[in-house]
């Protein structure tokens, strides 16, 4: 069976704004596959082009070179089989939580009362049962993330792309959300491509962790299968010796890249 996402030798080079500023190669020669129902995390130092890869998989960004296949078909335009959860605020501020959740159904032409009941159902599932009438500015960051999660999952996408979705949350809310995400994923296994800079989060959630080198021209430099038993509790799994062993092994590879990325940032400032 064809992989849900398959990137083959993908390069992404951004043109400079003018002749003086040089073009920037974010990622180079990236090959990455995510099988159907597999949870894959990509970790790497800041500015290594993780989001670029996700945008390529979503079809929001065309790669400069290389091929993208979604369930065996070459990707053209937007990836219609994928749901995307953004890192920053992506809710429509003029719509209530319910109307945000049902937006995708509305765009697909579903009758509004049917979409309403489905949206309420999903709001309950992410723990926001009574909050359907609230506008985004009336909710906390954690609640807005839950609305985003419901908004993405209500469409039942075959692929879920997540760009550091919980990075702006405090640590407790974050663990709650991670557990909820795992529970939802456990019940209907979808292909997930999860971007994060947090190694703990990557190991706790994933089947596989891919490590990206420091930018520019990042590429995968390591890959670890996470064979921790499921279902997992994000907080508890971090206490196990197996987790510590994996963490140490992956950090060995990641550490040099993080230091490299840090040095480059310092040089950029200087």
């Amino acid at each position: 069976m064809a992989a849900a996402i398959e990137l083959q030798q993908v390069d992404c080079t951004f043109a400079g704004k003018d002749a003086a500023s040089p073009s920037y190669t974010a990622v180079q020669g990236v090959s990455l596959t995510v099988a159907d129902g597999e949870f894959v995390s990509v970790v790497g130092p800041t500015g290594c082009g993780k989001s670029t890869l996700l945008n390529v998989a979503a079809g929001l960004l065309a790669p400069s070179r290389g091929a993208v296949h979604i369930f065996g078909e070459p990707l053209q335009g937007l990836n219609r089989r994928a749901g995307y959860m953004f890192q920053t605020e992506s809710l429509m501020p003029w719509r209530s939580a319910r109307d945000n959740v049902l937006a995708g159904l509305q765009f697909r032409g579903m009758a509004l009362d049917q979409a309403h009941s489905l949206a309420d159902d999903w709001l309950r599932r992410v723990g926001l049962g009574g909050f359907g009438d609230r506008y985004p500015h009336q909710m906390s960051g954690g609640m807005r993330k839950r609305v985003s999660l419901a908004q993405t999952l209500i469409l039942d996408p075959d692929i879920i792309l997540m760009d550091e979705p919980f990075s702006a949350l405090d640590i407790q809310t974050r663990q709650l959300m991670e557990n909820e995400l795992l529970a939802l994923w456990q019940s209907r296994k979808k292909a997930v491509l999860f971007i994060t800079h947090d190694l703990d989060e990557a190991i706790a959630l994933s089947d596989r962790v891919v490590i990206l080198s420091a930018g520019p021209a990042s590429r995968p430099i390591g890959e670890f299968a996470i064979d921790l038993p499921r279902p997992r509790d994000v907080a508890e799994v971090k206490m196990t010796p197996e987790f510590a062993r994996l963490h140490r092994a992956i950090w060995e590879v990641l550490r040099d890249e993080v230091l490299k990325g840090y040095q480059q940032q310092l040089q950029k400032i200087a």
Partner: protein
Amino acid sequence: MTDSSLAHRTPLPRWQRQLRLRLWQLGLLLAVLLFWYVMTKPGLIPPMMFDNERQAAFFFGEPGQVAQRIWAWFVTDADIYRHLRVTLPETVLAFGIGAASGLAGGLWLALSPTTSLVLEPYIKAFNAMPRIILAPIFGVWFGLGMGSKVALGVTLVFFVVFFNVYQGVKEVSPVVLANARMLGASGRQLLRYVYLPSATSWVFSSLHTSVGLAFVGAVVGEYLGSSQGVGYLILQAEGSFDINTVMAGIVVLTLFALLLDSLVGRVERHLMKWQPQAGETQKL
């Protein structure tokens, strides 16, 4: 002393604060009217800047006379209605047509970059031009009736709304846009469900300015050539140095402009209820 005691007092309930604010506003109005009355009433105080005691009233009018004039217009003579029936429709038409075409034009140009690049210098020129100078030409094109006044008002209103909508569409959050696209929105749906609502706050800020400009179009048009309308009324009064009537006309026009503005504000509050109010603490 009152200041420091104010700071420590528990805040008043909302309606009391509102009442206090209104009383201050009313007090200010009364003070201005009183000042006007005292300075212009013949014989009340000795003339300071003028040769005799009637000249202040001649140049600035008298509040009592102005009020009488307005009362006569609306009640005893009831002869302003035929003028209002001209000026108000001119204003409302100019406002409606200008705002609608500005909205459409702004959306269109913001969403098709090529067209906007081609038209850019011409739009800049039209905007920079003092468009009041078009009034005589409109008089020739549309006659001395309502048409020329509406046309003048439209040219004034259009650009204000147009530039605000253009800006509003440009400021749509790229993440919200990308999110809506990933959720499957078509181009038409993006326009209706993302660009339009996102631009509404900009549209409304421009509509408040436009109300005044629509009146400017109508009244200036009437100054330049007409046989009825409030602008015509004011011009006639000015011709016979009847400052009280000029002042009365100004007051009437201002009141109607306020009325139209409050209607816009009401629609705005209804449509913009998703926006956070200043100081609102509803976060959970």
